[in-house]
């Protein structure tokens, strides 16, 4: 445990000094590490690492498959943006309002949607998120800017958050967000409610028999992870300098799910890494798809490969079918092999129909 903590600390220290490194990484980034463009991409990766981590508390640790996590992320983006840019509130007041919304909204919607479980829960969370998305797109009272989005007004912000030259500060804010989310997640899953969440994932009935009320714990994790996602949305708003309605769509919820599965659900660092890798790939695949390497391919090959979502979708299917543990699963397998221990005795039982003993 202490070694894990030391590793985590070391990683964060390395990440924190990146804005001071004028190191070119050709192939990975177009420009040296400390340039604003690269820092911005890295900061987005860190932000989505945190958001994926928050989603993983719900999906990976409690086994709740929500398709509406984007709604809480979008709450952070839009509520703060509207308060600052439309109502001209101070940054502090906007943060307070966003934080309140980040608690109340997931609390209320979680309380309703957790009345059902499993597949119905997935559908219902999707429906709620869709309602939020429709609301943003329809631009009620000219608040959200509809399809155009809503630029963040710089007037209400302190100077160090504005302008390309200040990208390192934004980067550190994103890193701080990830660090806080990581620490909060670590603390939460080790706490008593955190152990109940994991017990719910394994067997909800048994949790009930033990005298707990699973519903309350599920609402708690829903609210907690929703709040962390809202905070991520706020950081994203600062980074990108505005709100666009794409962050409200089901595509973002699905992307979060992809990130978690890519990294390995049910571990703390896996989904964070998955979030960062996904965001990076998403960005690079868009570049790649418009690059000459793809443009030169014959038509039947070019059409699919020029669509980043196609590549991601296929990647995702392969991942689920062949690497169910994601990056964390593969890493675990490698570590076991290195330790020379046979990776679990080969099961003579393949997962056939479920059978009671």
């Amino acid at each position, binding site marked *: 445990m202490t070694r894990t903590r030391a590793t985590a600390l070391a990683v964060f220290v390395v990440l924190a000094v990146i804005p001071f490194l004028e190191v070119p990484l050709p192939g990975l980034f177009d420009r040296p590490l400390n340039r604003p463009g690269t820092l911005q991409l890295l900061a987005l990766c860190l932000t989505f690492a945190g958001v994926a981590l928050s989603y993983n508390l719900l999906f990976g640790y409690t086994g709740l498959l929500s398709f509406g996590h984007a709604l809480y992320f979008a709450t952070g983006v839009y509520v703060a943006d509207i308060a600052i840019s439309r109502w001209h509130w101070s940054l502090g007041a906007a943060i307070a309002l966003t934080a309140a919304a980040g608690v109340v909204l997931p609390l209320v919607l979680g309380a309703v949607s957790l009345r059902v479980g499993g597949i119905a829960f997935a559908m219902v969370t999707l429906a709620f998120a869709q309602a939020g998305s429709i609301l943003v797109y329809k631009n009620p009272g000219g608040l959200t800017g509809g399809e155009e989005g809503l630029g963040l007004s710089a007037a209400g912000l302190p100077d160090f958050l504005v302008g390309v030259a200040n990208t390192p500060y934004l980067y550190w804010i994103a890193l701080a967000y990830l660090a806080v989310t990581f620490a909060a997640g670590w603390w939460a899953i080790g706490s008593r409610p955190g152990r109940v969440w994991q017990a719910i994932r394994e067997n909800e009935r048994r949790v009930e028999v033990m005298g707990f009320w699973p519903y309350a714990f599920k609402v708690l994790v829903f609210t907690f992870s929703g709040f962390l996602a809202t905070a991520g949305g706020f950081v994203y708003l600062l980074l990108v300098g505005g709100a666009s309605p794409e962050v409200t769509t089901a595509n973002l919820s699905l992307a979060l799910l992809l990130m978690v599965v890519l990294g390995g659900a049910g571990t703390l660092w896996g989904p964070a890494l998955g979030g960062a890798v996904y965001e990076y790939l998403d960005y690079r695949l868009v570049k790649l798809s418009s690059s000459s390497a793809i443009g030169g391919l014959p038509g039947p090959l070019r059409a699919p490969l020029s669509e980043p979502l196609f590549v991601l979708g296929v990647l995702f299917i392969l991942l689920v079918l062949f690497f169910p543990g994601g990056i964390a699963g593969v890493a675990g397998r490698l570590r076991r092999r290195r330790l020379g221990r046979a990776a679990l005795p080969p*099961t*003579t*039982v*393949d*997962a*056939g*129909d479920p*059978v*009671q*003993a």
Partner: protein
Amino acid sequence: MAVATKTLLEVAGLHVHLGESHILQGLDFAVPEGGVTALLGRNGAGKTTTIKAILGLAGRSGSIRFDGQDLVTMKTHAIVQLGIGYVPEDREVFAGLTVAENLKLAERDAEPRYELVYQVFPELKQRAAQRAGSLSGGQQQMLALGRALLNRNRLVLVDEPTKGLSPLMVASATEALARVAEASTVLLVEQNLQVARHLAQGVVVLDQGRVVHAGEVAGLLADDALARRYLAVGVEGGH
């Protein structure tokens, strides 16, 4: 003493793992063609798992030969189509379907023996249009046995048919089993020693996932110590 008969089902080195636990640890036993073989043992000895493993409802390794054919690599529906009937432990009738639909679903032969089913269980005919979920436990057991009677099976696997039944129903179920056994070989899991002794000739006793005794029923019943040790009841207590 006993005439050597043909072996219908031969189980060798049968292992079943469920999660971390090793439920069956290398079973070896044989079921001769004709008559009833009882599979006995305490709760948790692995009786139900053995039945499910034969049917492919539990992942298994080892060898299960039915009339010379290896079942281990076959899928459940194909195994059943060889002529194996199944009466599961908790009846497992389809609650949302009517009695008639439950029987219809179980039809496998070109000429299903409805007369026989209705002769043994006239109640099933009267309740044909009733949903199986609204039947009493005893009636559901009739339906489960009726499904097995419907087809001309070579082997019928029956898992605790008298569990939770009233004494009257136990008698009726025993009679039905006797009818099943007239035409098919039966492998019977049974807690009620009275029923087992009434119906069975051969016996296989399991304990903690292993076969600890195999032979004739008479032999087991003569050995009070053996019965006490593995069945949690003395033979006298079984009366």
